[in-house]
């Protein structure tokens, strides 16, 4: 093999453009993800079931929420849950691949860390897009969620892009518990956060103190923000603060755990 190309020729070989980033690899990562039945069930099937179970409460259909009805409100919440699960799982995969030694293997290829992160983000975003689309599609087909057409697009995009921030949570949990069952742990953590943050039952239905506590949980801020285009009214900077603080906690936690086991890689 080597004699086919002389040493001089080999020395003149180029490094790949974009630090080794390639869409072919993104496609392989997505195929890998789709092969993981548990992840697909949790990211796509479960939100659909939640929507069918909670969101279609007949009372919600006739109740209005800002520019739409409560069913639309619930649809956004549940899509957010699915999307956040998708990106958190994507984040956790990064830490698990590190524990598996795959990241080390990649370090003897031209792939740059930035290109690797970009590949992982695109993969997560693809799954998140699947989660949002699935819930919105069911919402549209059942013909119960109602809001102006542009809000379907705007809220969908907000949920999709906003969910990316939760890849940091997955990264942190993955470093903390680098096991291949991490998706179950993430789904449990997110389920609790989703209930506490008012994704399944609106916080306005919570009793007084519980409502206050709910505002301190990680999904609260993002949940309120993605509903804002629908609900309108007074913008509350506390939502942004909640999101920023929790994002800070996750990033700090991930960096701390990453430093902790650097010797291994």
């Amino acid at each position, binding site marked *: *093999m*080597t*004699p*086919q*190309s002389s*040493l001089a020729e*080999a*020395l003149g*070989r*180029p*490094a*790949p*453009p974009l630090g*080794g980033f*390639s869409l*072919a*690899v993104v496609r*392989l990562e997505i*195929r*890998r993800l789709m*092969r*993981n039945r548990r992840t697909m069930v949790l990211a796509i099937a479960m939100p659909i079931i939640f929507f069918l179970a909670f969101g279609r409460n007949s009372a919600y259909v006739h109740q209005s929420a800002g520019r739409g009805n409560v069913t639309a409100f619930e649809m956004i919440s549940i899509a957010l849950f699915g999307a956040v699960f998708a990106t958190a799982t994507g984040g956790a995969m990064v830490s698990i*691949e590190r524990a*598996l*030694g*795959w990241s*080390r*293997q*990649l*370090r*003897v*290829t*031209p*792939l740059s860390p930035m290109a690797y992160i970009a590949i992982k983000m695109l993969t997560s975003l693809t799954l998140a897009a699947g989660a949002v689309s699935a819930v919105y599609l069911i919402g549209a087909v059942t013909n119960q969620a109602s809001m102006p057409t542009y809000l379907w697009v705007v809220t969908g995009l907000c949920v999709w892009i906003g969910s990316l921030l939760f890849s940091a949570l997955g990264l942190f949990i993955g470093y903390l518990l680098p096991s291949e069952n991490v998706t179950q742990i993430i789904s449990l953590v997110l389920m609790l956060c989703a209930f506490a943050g008012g994704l399944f039952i609106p916080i306005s239905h919570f009793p007084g103190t519980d409502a206050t506590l709910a505002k301190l949980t990680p999904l609260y801020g993002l949940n309120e923000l993605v509903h804002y285009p629908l609900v309108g009214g007074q913008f509350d900077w506390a939502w942004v603060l909640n999101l920023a603080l929790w994002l800070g906690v996750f990033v700090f936690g991930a960096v701390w755990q990453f430093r902790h086991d650097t*010797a291994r890689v």
Partner: protein
Amino acid sequence: MIAGNSAPDLSVSERASGTMAVQLRGVHKTFGSVKAVRGIDLTMRSGEVVAFLGPNGAGKTSTIDMILGLSQPTKGDVAVYGMAPRRAVTKGLISAVMQTGGLLKDLTVRETIEYTSNLFAVSRPVDEVLERAGITRIANRLVGKCSGGEQQRLRFAMALIPDPELLLLDEPTQGMDVEGRRDFWQAIRDDAALGRTIVFATHYLEEADAYADRIVLISKGRIVADGTATEVKALASGRTIRATLFHADEALLRAMPGVDEVEIRGETIYVHSGDTDAVARRLLSETTAHDIEITSRGLEDAFIALTTNGSDGADSDGKVAQ
């Protein structure tokens, strides 16, 4: 026999010809209080098959990691084809077969190769690489369902993707059964025959003996011997000359160069020496000795002798705390 602080470099053809594949100069690597590598100078030419031989914890993996650019030397410098290791990696000039891990169980064998192949600017065709590593038959199997030996051949295939000039293998056959090990080395041997530079770390003496042109014996973070298998064997234990000699003069034999043991059994003499060639020459020219045979001791003896001596040397030059 061997001074601890200056490792003998026996490689006969140590000439400054062509581009050096690897050059390590005064390389040290420290992890906290652990001195993993304590001053390694080493040059490898293109086309050599070199074994890093040494007991566990000798510093083999640390050295390989620095050649691959996975870690930086605490002191000294490393060049691969005259450039920084990371640059050589991005150009696909060097690749490696890692000890364990480093595979995704939920990809198939072929997908793993495709994945790797897409990361390089220039790569060999996927089918060719599968064929060379002998895993065409299992191309569509999930990696998680492959045996240890099959996974190792997959790692080998991944390393072949960029058609590297230099291939590093860190304990490549660890945990493989005898058959897997034999098949694996067959694939490596076929590949080496085509002129690729290969460096492998092992603590199996027979692997170093059978597959390397050159053995670099590492102990406690230093090179304690460097040469062909035969040279390394001779270094530790010298070689033994057996000859027929009537009326042997023991004093005369003992006075010959490098002789450290003489045994006379009737008409047969046994002379143990670090330079048996010189002794043989004198025996033939100055005495009536005939039927000369020269035998070396096993590499295992050399290994034990040198790795034990190496530690003594390290202690005596005061670089080890205690």
